[in-house]
């Protein structure tokens, strides 16, 4: 009896609490923005410093923060604790689970139809290819981060290895895309093992730092090894992929001429679209298969508890290395595709920003979830394009959307884990039980 009122008050903090919290937020905003927004400095005509104040803008910002934090607090109270299980009525739950089951096939069918539906809209086709490239990268990194729980901040290195493998093999030796594609995958996997060896003993933050450094090393080598890679100028004239040796060009031996139809540059775009779709689906299929094999289960067990793995006789060294190699291989395949799509690559395409973006896709999607990663790639890449009209506020809006998403779903869009084997019923495992791994 006595505990009830106390619990009540602690659950719904009063107006004073909200006001206090909002005031603190507003104060922090005032301190932060007083110099950033409140004072504007510029170099005068004679090089001297001129400045003027913009207290009006400052007041608006601080007021916005104050109002916003009140709003967030109220929303939070309305929503309840984030981790509390929401009790939903049975029909809603059934409808949700049905929607969850139907979503992947529906998405797949829609993706297959994208070139048909948007045949005339080059922009959408290009965007779809970009999204699928990131879906594939996300699925590839998901093996390392999501399944094995090894935080990899240098994933772009393997993307670069794949891209340069194809570009250099094609321009120097004239090898075709379809021969280079597996070679790029193998080379990237090899580099994955090479990175894996020194970082085997590292965990968590240390692992993240070393993988980050590895990504930068690859980029710097690409910039400075001018004789091989062309340095900052990159590699140009990378051949386009062919359909079993038939080029997609307006020439007499091109695909359009052979089929007797009028040539259109869209053919090549559609062709590229289906290549990356096939590659992404291959990544997905292999990952789903691997999860049900002992190696995939060992990856997940490694993420859950490395000590227990060793006590069960699992070689953690090779298990980690295979995770790195598999993830790197998919990155390499995506890189080869990137090179053939662009026709030109330079080290600028392989900055840390790309690694961070792919990692954000994996984290946002829900680590380990294939559907979540695909949705996150669509949201991140598609959403980023959606905000294009907002010009300089694009990054701000985008960042805020991400923060809100992580407050709403701290374990990603699809946080639960599906078991790999079951006796009677396949039931998703709640995200609070699934470990994130320690690197």
């Amino acid at each position: 009896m006595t505990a009830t009122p106390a619990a009540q008050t602690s659950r719904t903090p009063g107006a004073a609490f909200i006001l206090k919290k909002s005031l603190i937020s507003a104060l922090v905003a005032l301190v932060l923005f007083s110099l950033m927004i409140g004072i504007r400095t510029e170099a005068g005509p004679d090089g001297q410093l001129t400045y003027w104040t913009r207290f009006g803008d400052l007041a608006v910002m601080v007021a916005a923060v104050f109002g916003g934090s009140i709003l967030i607090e109220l929303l939070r109270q309305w929503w309840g604790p984030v981790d509390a299980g929401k009790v939903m009525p049975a029909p809603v739950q059934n409808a949700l689970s049905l929607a969850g089951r139907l979503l992947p096939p529906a998405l797949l069918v829609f993706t297959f139809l994208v070139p048909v539906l948007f045949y005339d809209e080059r922009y959408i086709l290009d965007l779809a290819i970009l999204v699928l490239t990131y879906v594939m990268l996300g699925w590839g990194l998901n093996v390392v981060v999501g399944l094995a729980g090894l935080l990899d901040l240098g994933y772009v290195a393997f993307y670069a290895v794949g891209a340069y493998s194809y570009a250099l093999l094609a321009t120097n030796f004239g090898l075709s895309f379809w021969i280079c594609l597996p070679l790029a995958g193998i080379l990237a996997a090899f580099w994955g093992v090479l990175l894996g060896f020194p970082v085997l003993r590292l965990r968590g933050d240390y692992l993240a730092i070393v993988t980050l450094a590895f990504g930068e090393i690859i980029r710097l080598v690409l910039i400075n090894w001018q004789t091989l890679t062309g340095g900052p100028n990159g590699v140009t004239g990378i051949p386009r992929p062919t359909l079993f040796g038939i080029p997609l060009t307006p020439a007499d031996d091109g695909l359009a001429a052979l089929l007797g139809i009028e040539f259109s540059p869209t053919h090549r775009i559609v062709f590229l679209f289906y290549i990356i779709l096939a590659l992404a689906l291959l990544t997905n299929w292999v990952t789903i298969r691997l999860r049900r094999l002992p190696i995939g289960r060992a990856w997940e067990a490694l993420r859950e508890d490395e000590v227990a793995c060793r006590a069960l006789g699992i070689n953690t060294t090779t298990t980690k290395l295979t995770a790195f190699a598999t993830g790197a291989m998919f990155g390499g395949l995506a890189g080869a595709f990137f090179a053939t799509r662009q026709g030109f690559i330079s080290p600028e395409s392989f900055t840390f920003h790309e690694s961070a973006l792919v990692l954000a896709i994996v984290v946002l999607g829900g680590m380990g979830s294939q559907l979540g990663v695909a949705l996150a790639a669509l949201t991140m890449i598609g959403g980023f394009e959606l905000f294009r009209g907002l010009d300089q506020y694009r990054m701000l809006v985008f960042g805020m959307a991400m923060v809100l998403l992580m407050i709403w779903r701290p374990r990603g869009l699809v946080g639960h884990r599906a078991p790999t084997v079951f006796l009677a019923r396949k039931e998703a495992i709640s995200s609070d039980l699934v470990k994130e791994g320690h690197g």
Partner: protein
Amino acid sequence: MSGAPILTVDRLAMRFGGIVAVNDLSFDAERRKITALIGPNGAGKTTVFNCITGFYKPTSGAICLTHDDGKAVQLERLNDFRIAKLARVARTFQNIRLFPGMTALENLMVAQHNALMRASGLTFLGLIGAPSWRNAEQAAIDLSRTWLDRIGLLDRADDAAGNLPYGDQRRLEIARAMCTQPALLCLDEPAAGLNARESAALSELLLSIRADHGTSILLIEHDMSVVMEISDHVVVMDHGLKIAEGTPREIRDDPKVIAAYLGSDEEEAIAVMESGT
């Protein structure tokens, strides 16, 4: 050869810097018997376990495991996962270390990793779904099912291990260790946190494991009712030294053991020991 002890610990010592955790410890664990390692907190029991199972490298001394076919393995020369894989020593942990986000069934499947890796042709046969792999996988599932049935968790096979009650988690960890088909099973305080009824069920499980599989068991335990009921041989440690060994009855009456457990207050010590009968 099968008469020889399965495990011979010879003058084992383990020092961490200046701290001597285990000093000059020698004992044998008989084949197909249950050997208990007991002693007050901080006596060095878990350190001995960690040396046997390869988590620590002993400072000096030898640990020899002799398999049924007479093949002997020097455990102190192996490290890490190789002890579990090559010497077939399985262990459980004092603080349960299941894979909480995986189902009970998956936990048992992970334990069969090495056998399944061979069957899946290092993943490649498995990737193309070869029939030999499918059969091996089904056999692994059947073995897991048998063990789940034995520990009474068949109806919770598809539940996350982290969601199981504490006592079930303890039993699942033992079943997981048994799924590696061990020659020697090392249990670190399997009865910790269990109530009297669960402890009795645990004793029964351990006795049946020994009877049905011929697995030798080495256990650390504080619960005297379990130790006295199931052990064939008891080794008592204190401050890193072996202070006594013998049958449970001999140990219970040994004044040195009583003194080690409860200082010099023999009355109380006797009461504790008696409670175990």
